[in-house]
């Protein structure tokens, strides 16, 4: 279990997510990425990547961002400038979600850490329709170099 100042189950979940996001950005994108306090509106036209948890945990990890943020993220991850409608942007956002969800899962204790994660699914349908699907949700917004994206963990 991670050592945290406030070790309520909810804060443990969020702290593990913050840690997973930070690790992915520092190692794969060589950038720092910090959580933002409070609700932050992310522009419409968002791209969304989903990873499903099954087995010991049933739920989803959803990463959502504007197209502009998605393109900047893809460029940072791939080290190349993305082109308009570049499929690499979808791949990069899906992989980012995969690594964050996997990193978060790997920080869980047994038996939750043994849950399986799906391959990422990337859509542009936004979060509509997901409300109410799961009972417990943790929403978190992050920023790297002024680019904002959100992550929703739902169980």
């Amino acid at each position, binding site marked *: 279990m991670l050592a945290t100042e406030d070790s309520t189950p909810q804060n443990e979940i969020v702290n593990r997510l913050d840690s997973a996001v930070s*690790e*992915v950005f520092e*190692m*794969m994108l060589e950038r720092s990425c910090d959580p933002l306090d409070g609700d932050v509106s992310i522009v419409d036209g968002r791209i969304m990547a989903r990873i499903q948890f099954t087995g010991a945990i049933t739920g989803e990890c959803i990463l959502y961002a504007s197209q502009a943020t998605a393109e900047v993220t893809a460029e940072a*991850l*791939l*080290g*190349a400038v993305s082109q308009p409608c570049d499929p*690499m942007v979808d*791949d990069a956002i899906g*992989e980012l979600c*995969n*690594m964050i*969800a*996997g*990193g978060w*899962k*790997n920080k869980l204790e047994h038996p939750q*850490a*043994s849950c399986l*994660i*799906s*391959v990422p699914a990337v859509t542009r349908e936004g979060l509509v329709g997901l409300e109410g699907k799961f009972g417990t949700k943790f929403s978190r917004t992050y920023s790297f170099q002024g680019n904002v994206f959100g992550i929703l963990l739902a169980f």
Partner: protein
Amino acid sequence: MRKVIERALRQAGLELTEVLQASNGEEALQALRDDGGKPHPLALILSDINMPIMDGLQFLEQRRDEKLAVGVPVVMITTEGSEPLVLRAISAGAQGYICKPFTAEQVKARVLPLLRVA
């Protein structure tokens, strides 16, 4: 992820003369079957575990059963770092394991010792 891996290998100083890419295990098996008659065999196989259609573990096991690319080292790159999966990958023929996220240095450290010197 394939582009990310390719970038990491280049950052590690490897000169990639030819890269066969596949988006799932089935495509990878087919690429190995098609590549069987080439005079310059593969130097390395890198595979994710979490893939659609056929995952990396199934790919490894099928590759072993079909005796494809025998002797070519395999490194798994994945977020799935649990012990049972690692053991299954090793028993199916994986020589290395890299957990995502990773740095280019980590890729270099895991991959270079496995590469055959030309």
